[in-house]
């Protein structure tokens, strides 16, 4: 049981981390590097001269990119461990876990850890003004937990009362509100900040769909393999 959990989570998480890193390099990293030119003051918008929207972003930084691959693999392996653990509990109470049903688990995971927090705390491009990091982290974890519980209630509960609680849990973090800065001091053009947020969410959705399918696939395959060996 424990080896089935760990094996399927490590395979699914590591593969997803590599795919997510690749997507981030192609779609998110150019926007991030571009924003850093404004963060560092190399580019300034709203000056006397119009600034080109297509600057030279430099070449590949091997060390920096290798660390990004490593941490992407770590983050998605962490998510995979939680996801597979929850899948195992659902299966024990009668749910069917396959690559196909994993798709819905992946989309739900994306909503819980990317989309719901982003509604009130959009993915931050470097160089934006933001409130205290600890306060934002506390809000982030609370929102992920509330949304996760709400989605589980919607999926598995069978009563109107439970579904009403789910709606309250979905809305509460945003009605309470995320920590925001007292004043705006961002140096990055709004075009880049918007592009960064939507690209980060798009890549997050793709990665979580892959993670859900792979987690479902490896969980089922490891189960068959261990049953055959027993």
């Amino acid at each position, binding site marked *: *049981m*424990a080896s089935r*959990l*760990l094996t399927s*989570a490590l395979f699914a998480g590591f593969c997803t981390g590599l795919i997510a*890193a690749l997507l*981030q390099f192609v779609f*998110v*990293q150019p926007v*991030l590097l571009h924003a850093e030119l404004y963060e560092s003051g190399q580019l300034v918008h709203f000056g006397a001269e119009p600034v080109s929207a297509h600057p030279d972003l430099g070449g590949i930084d091997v060390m*920096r990119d290798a*660390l*990004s691959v*490593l*941490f*992407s693999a*770590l*983050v998605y*392996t*962490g*998510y*995979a*461990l*939680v*996801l*597979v*653990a*929850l899948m*195992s*509990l659902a299966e*024990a109470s009668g749910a069917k876990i396959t690559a196909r049903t994993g798709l819905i688990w992946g989309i739900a995971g994306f909503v819980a*850890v*990317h989309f719901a*927090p*982003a509604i009130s*705390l*959009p*993915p*931050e*491009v*470097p160089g934006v003004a*933001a409130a205290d*990091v*600890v306060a*934002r*982290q506390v809000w*982030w974890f609370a929102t992920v937990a509330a949304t996760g519980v709400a989605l589980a209630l919607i999926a598995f509960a069978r009563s109107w009362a439970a579904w009403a609680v789910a709606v309250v849990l979905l809305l509460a973090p945003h009605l309470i509100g995320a920590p925001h800065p007292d004043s705006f001091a961002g140096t990055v053009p709004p075009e880049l900040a918007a592009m*960064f947020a939507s690209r*980060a*969410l798009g*890549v*997050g959705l793709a990665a979580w769909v892959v993670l859900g399918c792979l987690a479902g696939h490896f969980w089922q395959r490891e189960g068959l393999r261990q049953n055959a060996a027993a």
Partner: protein
Amino acid sequence: MNAIARTAASARAGLVQALMVAALGLGVVMVAGHLQASALHDAAHDVRHATGFPCH
């Protein structure tokens, strides 16, 4: 041990293992995505931004 007790015991073991694996996963996400130690922050910087974690 009869069959019902055995099923209950294996369900309990499954729950404990699932909770431990989930806690391990949460720990990995905490360290890779949220700890503010500066070496970790710098190494994970791009991934933290791209994954929508609060950074800085």
